[in-house]
């Protein structure tokens, strides 16, 4: 291993350095090229890089208009997501920041009495999910659409979003015609203005009677946590807010504060997850895991300080086995992200834990003696399913055959609001040369070689998710999605 490198390998460390010294747009370009060339991979580095980048974007944002800030973040986000759609962590962070901005602007608007606290529903229903670039088929009669509100066709801030609007718009028209017969219900909301502004309704009746309004009781009420619905953020509403420059500076400062908190969350996610380790691991257990995930290793290390157990570690050949071997032998010696000193951790063997390394083929053979399986996903999806490194589906299925519980550990930043209509789209394919070398002429000429990097594991194979917020069943994840993301941001 060379100790002196002429130029550092491009990756997150170089990106962060670049970010410090260069203007924002250059950094965006740099990040986009890193993503495209897969020089920055795996959820955590991507999330951290995106957060830093957005921090700089917001910091260098000169305008006073919150709507413009939202636009700016959205456009940056679209660029990043388009660079690597399967790196869902990037999109998650962008959506988190957008949600943050909207929330802060709304809080500000609430405090500001001049603004009409009730605006038209700038809400897109939760059903309108169409991640850019990933083809999906969306039925007009799907359940989310039926119960929830339908978008207005009037010009909204989302008017410049891509074609997804049109599809749902047409559907909206169809359903509208059937349903708008009854008069709207009176609600507790103070300013019930005429029908130009859609009234707030709090009952399902009102929902069916007035399809223009999103119902706060429909599940999930994205972005709202109070029974009284917060008004949507529209350019109309924002335009009516008086131009108080003091308030705008506050907003920017608060957004920066929020993004820094997000950074802290990313840093502490592993520690917070590891804090739950002792709740889930007992003595003399045999735990199966695979790949070199930091989260899993730190989870096990936290338990290893107090309990003695055995870990069976499946090397993830061919994509992660070198890192897995390194993790088993040495733990993590230097951090890949920035210059964090506390990124180092010792291997499990140093704490007296027996680690048995097995090739992936032996997973079924030993599964009957395994007490639990711990997986680390690449992305967690809102339906409770997850995308993890190749081999995870085999392990999860073998575990389900043997009735062994499967635990997935991940930070909330990996949780994506995107619904996987087509699970094929989520799988990234890697270098076929790792499976069969290119020097092997016979194989290269006549044999097709495929190297999928990920597996999609459906929600019924996972028993528990442990996130930095605690443990949840897969059926609860949609709630966490609702807490962290906004409906109008899902479709960037």
């Amino acid at each position, binding site marked *: 291993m060379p100790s002196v490198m002429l130029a550092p390998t491009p990756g997150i460390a170089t990106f962060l350095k670049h970010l410090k010294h260069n203007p924002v747009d250059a950094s965006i370009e740099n990040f986009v090229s890193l993503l495209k060339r897969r020089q920055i991979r795996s959820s955590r580095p991507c999330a951290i890089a995106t957060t830093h980048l957005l921090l700089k974007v917001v910091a260098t944002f000169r305008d006073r208009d919150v709507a413009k800030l939202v636009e700016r973040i959205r456009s940056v986000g679209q660029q990043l997501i388009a660079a690597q759609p399967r790196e869902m962590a990037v999109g998650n962070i962008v959506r988190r920041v957008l949600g943050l901005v909207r929330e802060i602007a709304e809080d500000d608007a609430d405090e500001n009495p001049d603004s009409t606290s009730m605006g038209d529903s700038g809400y897109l229903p939760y059903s309108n999910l169409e991640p850019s670039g990933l083809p999906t088929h969306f039925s007009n009669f799907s359940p989310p659409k039926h119960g929830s509100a339908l978008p207005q066709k009037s010009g909204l801030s989302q008017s410049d979003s891509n074609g997804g609007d049109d599809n749902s718009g047409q559907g909206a028209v169809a359903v509208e015609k059937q349903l708008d017969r009854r008069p709207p219900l009176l609600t507790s909301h103070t300013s019930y203005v005429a029908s130009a502004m859609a009234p707030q309704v709090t009952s399902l009746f009102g929902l069916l009677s007035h399809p223009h309004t999103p119902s706060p009781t429909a599940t999930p009420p994205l972005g709202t946590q109070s029974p009284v619905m917060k008004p949507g953020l529209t350019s109309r509403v924002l335009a009516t807010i008086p131009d108080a420059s003091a308030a705008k500076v506050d907003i920017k400062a608060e957004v920066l504060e929020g993004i820094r908190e997000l950074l802290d969350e990313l840093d502490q996610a592993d520690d917070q997850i590891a804090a739950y380790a002792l709740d889930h691991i007992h003595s003399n257990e045999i735990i199966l895991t695979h790949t070199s995930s930091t989260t899993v290793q730190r989870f096990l290390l936290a338990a290893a300080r107090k309990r003695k157990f*055995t870990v069976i570690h499946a090397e993830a050949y061919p994509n992660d086995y070198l890192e897995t071997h390194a993790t088993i032998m040495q733990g993590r010696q230097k951090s890949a992200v920035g210059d964090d000193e506390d990124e180092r951790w010792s291997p499990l*063997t140093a704490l007296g834990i027996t680690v048995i390394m097995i090739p992936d083929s032996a997973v*079924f053979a030993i599964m009957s003696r395994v007490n639990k399986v711990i997986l680390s996903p690449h992305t967690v999806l809102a339906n409770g399913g997850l995308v993890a490194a190749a081999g995870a589906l085999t392990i999860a299925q073998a575990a389900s055959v043997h009735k062994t519980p499967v635990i997935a550990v991940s930070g909330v930043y990996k949780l994506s609001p995107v619904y996987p209509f087509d699970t094929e789209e989520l799988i990234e394919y890697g270098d076929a040369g790792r499976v069969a070398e290119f020097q092997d002429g016979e194989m290269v000429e006549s044999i097709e070689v495929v190297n999928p990097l990920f597996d999609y594991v459906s929600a019924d194979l996972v028993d528990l998710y442990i996130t930095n917020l605690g443990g949840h069943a897969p059926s609860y994840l949609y709630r966490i999605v609702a807490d962290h993301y906004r409906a109008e941001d899902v479709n960037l």
Partner: protein
Amino acid sequence: MAPSVGGDPAAPTDTAASQSAPDGSSKAAIDGAQTSKTSAIASSGKQENGVANGETKASGAEAKKRAKAEKAAKREREKAERAGAGGTAAGPQASEQGGQSSGALKPTQNQQKGQKDRQGEAKAQAQAQTSSKDAKASHKRTGSVSAANAQRPLALRRRPSQSGGQAKESKQIVKEVGLFGHLYNQPRRYTIEGASKAVHPAVLALGLQMSSYTICGSSARCVAMLLAFKKAIEAYSTPKETSLPRHMSSHYLSPQIDFLKTCRPISVSMGNAIRWLKDQIIHIDPDTDDGEAKAELCAGIDQFIRERITVAGSAIAASASTKIKPGDVILTYAKSALVEQTLLRAHEAGTDFRVIVLDSRPLFEGKNLARALARAGLRVQYMLLSAAPHAAKEATTVLLGAHAMMSNGRLCSRVGTAVVAMLAHARAIPVIVCCESVKFTDRVALDSIVQNEIAPSEELLLPSAAAGVADGGSLAKWKETPGLQLLNIMYDVTPAEYIDMVVTEFGFLPPSSVPVVHRISTERDVRT
């Protein structure tokens, strides 16, 4: 002192250590060669002991007490010596009463001194034991003690750094996975060094070919073994006093078989073939001429290979290839000769289909199959086992080979087969196993742990790691890392419910019919 107490360096408690004293040699099985050798010496030392005394009673408790006393005596003597007190007159008395708490440390300290020291110690111990037994209360045999003492200074050189390090070293020695501990006594041999003279050169060569995976695969090994035995039989000549049927099996064939077993554990098909061969030998008329008998045996072997393997294989290929329809996507795992035959047969028949070959570390047998099929003109896709779910999405049929079919309908095959069968079953893809009846066995299996073959862990190392290159990330130093074990099993057992059909030379069977067919095929060979 240490060896006679028991070669177990990991004795955590005094009681364990002292109780192992009389039968220390048996405990040494887990530890390395060193300690087993020393316990052998120790047991011989003890025998000297008993013979010398003439008072060796078989009472276990008494023997234990005696051993404890001896141990304590020896400890006291060492202590006294080190303190420089010289003549250990008071030693044995004091030692018999107490001082056992220090025992755990001392025997382990001495472990590291090396074999020679232990040998010296053992002899010294024997003498010391003798003397202490006779002395009982008072001890005046300064002569023998000093002689023993004279040998001891070498052994007792104390290295303080090692007293703490002992515990670590004992943990490092455990490189065997606990669950599979009963399988680690299967040897592997890579040289012909130490082989018995009776082993025929053809068998020597075969043994090495098997241990290096040059000849790999159940049927291939069976055929190769029978051919090597043919050569060995041709070279055989019956000694004067005995007859061929009585002598050949136990005195000529057995060393060959034992040698093969030391090279690599034999497969089920090889076991069945050996049983058949021995049966053939026994049933030879003792009056027949040697040459005739040998020719008969060789012809019998040829017929066995032809019937049970060659013709059976081709019959299976023919029937299984009828299960391949145009447009099929056949999924297979690793390399099975029968599956290869089947696919080639179907391809020759003109059926249009394609094949996905799955493969895994460390043997990569699937690469050979993929190449062979591609050479024959089939459309082949090659993937690793981690991509198995991806492959299973497109597959219409799964064809698997077998190492053995168990009598409870389970399939024993290359490790990873169960994964493929499970994924196929989850997607309702038919799983077809191609297996000759020579691979059927009476044994039953419920898991892949009780009966299996453990290959040396070094095979799991990547080539650079195996060569000892100090690449920081690789597993080059896995042996020195305490608590790290590499598990390299060769077979796994697939549950019967994942298998839809077994194709044998007798036709298509459900896995539950395997014991019935096994009975039929063995009855057929038994001459009544």
